[in-house]
């Protein structure tokens, strides 16, 4: 609860700032509508306002302020508009309806979980290989780094097309892209974790003549637990981003990624923001779940 008040304060500050920001952001459109309805604004005429600073316009025309928080397709929707949209698309429609964000979140979530499973699994296996084989360490690591500098959004469509041509469709292509983004943090974290036992810990194992396998199970793996969880948290967030990215070219369909995009095709900013928040909530939820597992596990291991 120590964080409750601070978070509340920060959120409140952001909301106030957000409402204020809406005014200059949406002021030009508000003045145009006002002008059409015969309200006096200054200066008159769209042309005259074209190159004027939005802040200046906002200050000069307080009459239009209320409208900047109530537009249909604002540049920046006001917080309550986003909340209303979230409410409308979660609470007021059945969760199985395709108009429900819950439904789309579920679709995205299932691909994310599958992808995260694949990615984390691959990451851990790769890390085990890297820790135990010098050749793998030297050759794979630089390329794992290089792989992350490839813009995923650029190759995601190609991956999808190629997988499609092998008849792989539906959840799996999305999951593979999501796995691609999540394996890297897991590899890096796990390599660090599996290498975290100090020279003395390893020497101890040697004085007992432990085998590599015994050393792995009884020393390296437990020692890597804190690193594992830290990287799983980054990994699961990346995984979600991966799914969203993969949804863009997957050919129209269900999922938060599509909501984001279709919002942008039709200029529905409120819908975009609602989808954005839904994604962030999903990510925060996933991270929170891992944190909980982490706390319980580390506690049982006596590490927390």
């Amino acid at each position, binding site marked *: 609860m120590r964080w409750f008040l601070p978070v509340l304060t920060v959120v409140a500050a952001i909301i106030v700032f957000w409402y204020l920001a809406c005014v200059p952001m949406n002021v*030009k*459109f508000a003045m*145009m*509508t006002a002008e*059409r309805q015969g309200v006096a604004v200054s200066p008159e005429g*769209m*042309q005259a306002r*074209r190159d004027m600073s939005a802040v200046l316009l906002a200050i000069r025309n307080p009459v239009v302020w209320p409208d900047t928080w109530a537009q*249909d*397709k604002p*540049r920046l929707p006001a917080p309550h508009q986003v909340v209303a949209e979230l409410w409308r698309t979660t609470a007021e429609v059945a969760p199985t*309806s*395709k*108009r*429900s964000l819950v*439904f*789309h979140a579920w679709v995205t979530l299932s691909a994310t979980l599958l992808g995260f499973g694949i990615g984390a699994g691959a990451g851990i296996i790769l890390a085990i290989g890297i820790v135990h084989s010098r050749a793998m360490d030297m050759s794979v690591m630089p390329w794992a780094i290089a792989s992350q500098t490839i813009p995923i*959004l650029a190759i*995601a*469509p*190609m991956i999808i*097309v*190629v997988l*499609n*041509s092998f008849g792989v469709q539906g959840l799996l292509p999305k999951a593979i892209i999501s796995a691609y983004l999540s394996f890297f943090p897991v590899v890096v974290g796990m390599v660090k974790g599996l290498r975290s036992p100090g020279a003395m810990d390893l020497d101890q194992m040697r004085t007992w003549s432990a085998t590599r396998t015994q050393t792995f199970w009884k020393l390296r793996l437990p020692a890597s637990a804190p690193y594992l969880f830290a990287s799983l948290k980054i990994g699961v967030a990346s995984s979600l981003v991966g799914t969203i990215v993969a949804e*863009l*070219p*997957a*050919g*129209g*369909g*269900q999922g938060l990624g*599509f*909501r984001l*995009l*279709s*919002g*942008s*095709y*039709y*200029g*529905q900013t409120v*819908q975009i923001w609602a989808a954005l928040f839904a994604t962030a909530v999903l990510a925060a939820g996933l991270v929170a779940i891992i944190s909980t597992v982490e706390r319980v596990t580390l506690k049982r291991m006596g590490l927390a």
Partner: protein
Amino acid sequence: ADDLTLQLKWVTQAQFAGYYVAKDKGFYDEEDLNVTIKAGGPDIAPEQVIAAGGADVITTWMAAALAARERGVDLVNIAQPFKTGGLQVNCLKSSGIETPADFPGHTMGVWFYGNEYPFYAWMASLGIKTDGASEDGVTVIKQAFSADPLIQGQADCISTMTYNEYRQILQAGITEDELVTFNYLKEGFGMLEDGLYVLGDKLEDPAFKDEMVRFVRASMKGWKYAEANPAEAAEIVLENDETGAQTLDHQEYMMTEVAKLTAGSNGALDPADYDQTVATLLKAVSPDNPAITKEPEGAYTLEITDAALK
């Protein structure tokens, strides 16, 4: 029933109403076809999908199809439900543009991703530079698929479709008399829009050919039904939209506008339109914009529509 996959160029919307109606109304079933319709998006190149075997038939614009042909994807037009095109350029009068001669010095939004060929053809024939470097040229920006740049004042002119972005501009409060509209067709740079394309080698298989005949027949039945019943068609589209983000109001509008484009076609490609598209594209050949460099051959066949429509 025979299984078929249709890859669309864009997301589920009334632009593709004919196919959704045919599926929903059972026209495909009547022809003993089991059609899967795959929605597209900005990052989907249907030409690539069909080359990779992910679809049997695709919709795309002819310019893109011919460009793909030159790159070794043997695309053949088998039907052309869109008689005329809905692509246009909208400018703000306030920016001082009245005729194409006023373009130089202004910023223009263009859709890329295979949609840019008509624009470059037009500019080439107007003699306007598009590299952004010269004083007497235009500054081209890659416009995302929305009307925002004009509404936000980031561009003086943007690309729109009559059936979609144009209305978004109007809805944003800009009135028709504040706008100048250039229709590519009227400017003489119209190109054939949504047509149906398949891979040439597959057409050698009589069974596939027969499937296509049935497919085109049913699809055209769908189109004509949609033209006659725009409200119902819009609703069918909405039902098929998996994102659940579309609005009925907008789809109804789109359906009425699209109907204007499909009205003149019974599905058969008019070779004269084809010739005009090719001629226009060939005018624009430049190293930067290699749509096509030479006259294509065998890029369309009338056999399917002949068989389907008799």
